C-alpha cells in the first residue's frame, strides 16, 4: 500500500475533542490507504471512531475537534490546505454519501439543482450542459423516468430514490474517491440490495476508489477489497476481505463474526461480547479491548499491543494470535 499512488491515504491520524482531564480521544493513530478502483471497508461499532476518522481525513470534522496527521488525496495533503483550496480540492476529487439522505439533501431545491450545483461550480459547465449531465447521472443510478425526477423535490421521493440521488450528486464531478458513511443502514434490505448492486456496477465502470463505512461486516463483505476493523479509536485489524472472513486474527473481530445471527445457521446461544465499548474520555491503559476480551492475557492489561503483521498484508493489534 503505497501512499504515492493511493487515491486516498491516511497517515497517523489523531482526533481529540475537548481538553484537560475530560479530553475525548476519538481517533488514535489511524493509517490506511485506498488504491484507485479499490474499495476499503471501515467497520466498527458506534463510538469506534470509524466515521470520525474518515470525516477528519477529508476536512469535515466538527469545528471543536483537533485533527492531527496527514491525508493524501491523489498525492495532495488535504489537512495542509487552506479553507478555499480544501473546498476546491474536495469538491472536485471527493464524493460523499451519508446515512440519511433526507438530512443530506436540501429540501428546498429540486433534484436537478442539487446535482448541477457541483458540476457548474467545480467543472465550470454551463447550465444546459450540467442539466444534460444530471439526466445522465440519474439514469446511471437507476432512477426510472429520470427526466421527470429532475423536477422533483426530495420529499416527493422514497428513501431508496433519495439515496440514489445522493450517489448521483457524489459522482457528478467524477471524483477520485467516493466516501460512503453507512449509506444503506437506514434503508430496507431489498432497497439496500439494489443500492449495493448499483455501487458495484458503477465502480467497475468509473474505477474510482471507495471508502465504505459500516457497522455491518456482512454488507462490506460483498463490496470491499480490504477491510479495516476499528474499536476505541484504533485499528484492531486490517486484511483482505476474504482473509478477514476465513482467518480473523483479533479476538474482537472473531467476536463480531460470532455475535451476528446468520441465516440458516441456528445456534442455541449467540456468542455475545460482554460489556460495552470504552468511553473515549476514560480509555484503559493496556489493550483497548481488554475489558471485554474472552482471552484477557495478563500483559494485555497494561501493555498496548502493536498493530503487527500476522501474515503478508494482514495486520492485527493483539498478542494472542495463536489462541483461537
Amino acid at each position, binding site marked *: 500500500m503505497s501512499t504515492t499512488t493511493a487515491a486516498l491515504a491516511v497517515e497517523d491520524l489523531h482526533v481529540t475533542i475537548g481538553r484537560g482531564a475530560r479530553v475525548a480521544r476519538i481517533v488514535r493513530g489511524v493509517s490506511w490507504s485506498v488504491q484507485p478502483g479499490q474499495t476499503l471497508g471501515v467497520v466498527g461499532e458506534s463510538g469506534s471512531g470509524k466515521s470520525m476518522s474518515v470525516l477528519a481525513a477529508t476536512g469535515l470534522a466538527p469545528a471543536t475537534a483537533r485533527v492531527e496527521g496527514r491525508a493524501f488525496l491523489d498525492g495532495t495533503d488535504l489537512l495542509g490546505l487552506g479553507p478555499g483550496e480544501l473546498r476546491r480540492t474536495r469538491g472536485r476529487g471527493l464524493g460523499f454519501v451519508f446515512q440519511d439522505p433526507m438530512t443530506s439533501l436540501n429540501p428546498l431545491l429540486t433534484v436537478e439543482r442539487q446535482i448541477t450545483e457541483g458540476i457548474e461550480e467545480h467543472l465550470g459547465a454551463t447550465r444546459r450542459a450540467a442539466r444534460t449531465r444530471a439526466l445522465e447521472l440519474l439514469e446511471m443510478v437507476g432512477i426510472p423516468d429520470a427526466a421527470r425526477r429532475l423536477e422533483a423535490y426530495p420529499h416527493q421521493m422514497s428513501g431508496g430514490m433519495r439515496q440514489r440521488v445522493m450517489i448521483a450528486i457524489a459522482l457528478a464531478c467524477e471524483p477520485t474517491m467516493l466516501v460512503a458513511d453507512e449509506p444503506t443502514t437506514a434503508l430496507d*434490505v*431489498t432497497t439496500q440490495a439494489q443500492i449495493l448492486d448499483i455501487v458495484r456496477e458503477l465502480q467497475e465502470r468509473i474505477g474510482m476508489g471507495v471508502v465504505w463505512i459500516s457497522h455491518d461486516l456482512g454488507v462490506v463483505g460483498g463490496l470491499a477489497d480490504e477491510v479495516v476493523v476499528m474499536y476505541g479509536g484504533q485499528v484492531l485489524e486490517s486484511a483482505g476481505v476474504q482473509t478477514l472472513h476465513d482467518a480473523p486474527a483479533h479476538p474482537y473481530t472473531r467476536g463480531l463474526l460470532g*455475535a451476528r445471527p446468520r441465516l440458516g445457521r441456528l445456534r442455541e446461544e449467540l456468542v455475545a461480547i460482554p460489556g460495552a465499548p470504552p468511553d473515549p474520555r476514560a480509555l484503559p491503559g493496556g489493550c483497548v479491548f481488554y475489558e471485554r476480551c474472552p482471552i484477557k492475557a495478563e500483559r494485555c492489561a497494561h501493555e498496548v499491543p502493536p498493530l503487527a503483521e500476522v501474515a503478508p498484508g494482514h495486520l492485527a493489534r493483539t498478542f494472542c494470535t495463536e489462541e483461537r
Partner: protein
Amino acid sequence: MTPDDASTTDRPLLSVRDLSVRFPAGREGRVRRWVHAVEGVGFDVERGRTLGLVGESGSGKSTIGNALTGLVRATSGTVHLDGTDVLTARGRAARELRRRIAMVFQDPYASLDPRRSIGATIREPLDVHRLLASRAQRAARVAELLDLVGLPAQAAQRYPHELSGGQRQRVSIARALAADPDLIVLDEATASLDVSVQAQIMNLLRRLQRELGLTYLFISHDLAAVEHMSHRVVVMYLGRLMEQGERSGLYERPAHPYTQALMSAIPADDPAVERTRERILLSGELPSPVDPPSGCVFRTRCPLAIDACADHVPPVHLDVDHTAWCLRTDAALAGRAPR
C-alpha cells in the same frame, strides 16, 4: 419449550383474526381516503413461544404491535388474549389487559424518562397496577428484576444517561417484566443496538423465556434475528400477510416470491459466495398504502406475477403449518436457487 405446562387449555395465548387498521388520509372530492396500514391479518401465538413478525418499512408490523397494546385503534377484526377480547375491553378489564401485555420499543433512549431513576422506572408498572402493598416489597421486586436482566442492584439509583444503550434496553425489559405479563411485544427491540450488544439482548430474551415461560411477539425487519428468536414466523408486506409458518419450514422452503426476495437481499457471510451468488432484485418501489394494488399487493414488484394475480390471492397450504398467500407458489418453489 412446550406449552403443556400451561395452566389452562390448548387455546393459543393470543389469537388475532381479520385485523385491519386504517388511518384517515384526507378527502378527494367527496370520497374519504384511507391509509390501509393493516388489512385482514390473522395469526395465533402459542403460550411460551415466540412469533416473529417480519417485514420492511410500511409492512404494518409495528402497527399490529401498537393495536395489540391499544396504542392505535383497530378498525375491524378481533384480538383475543387468553379468551378475553382485547379490542372491546373497557375499565377494569382493559387495565388488566394492559398489565398482561407489555411492550419493549426500539430506542431505549426515547422510551425511558430521562428525569426518572431506573428504580422508579421499573417500579412504575407496580405502582400503576397496585401490585405490591408495601414499599419494601416493591423495592425488593425492583432488585429482583434488575438481577433478572443482569444489572447490579445499585443501578436502581442511576439515570438513563448514565447507562450504555445495552444497559438501557435491559432496563426497558425489566420494566416490561415488572407486572408479570403474559405477552411481551418486542418492537425492533434490538435494532438500534451494536452487533455485540444485540447478541447480549437476544441471549437475555431467550433465557428469560426459558426461565419464566414468557410469550413474545418479536417484530423485526431483520430476517436472521427473527430466525434466531422465533418458533413461528409471519411475513408481511404493505399491510398484508404474505407467508406464515413454523420457522424451519418457512426458512428452509420459502414459497412466497416476496419472502424469497427478502432472504436473497441478505448478504452471504462468505465474500466469495456473496460475489458469485444469484440474487433476486426487486424492481420498482413500495406502492402507496392509500391506493394499494388490487389482488396481490406485491404483484407490481413480483418477478413472477401474471395477469391473474390482480384478481386472486389464494392461501396455498404447503404443509399443515405453512401457508403462502400467492398464486405463483409452484413457480416460486421451482425457481428457487438454494442459498
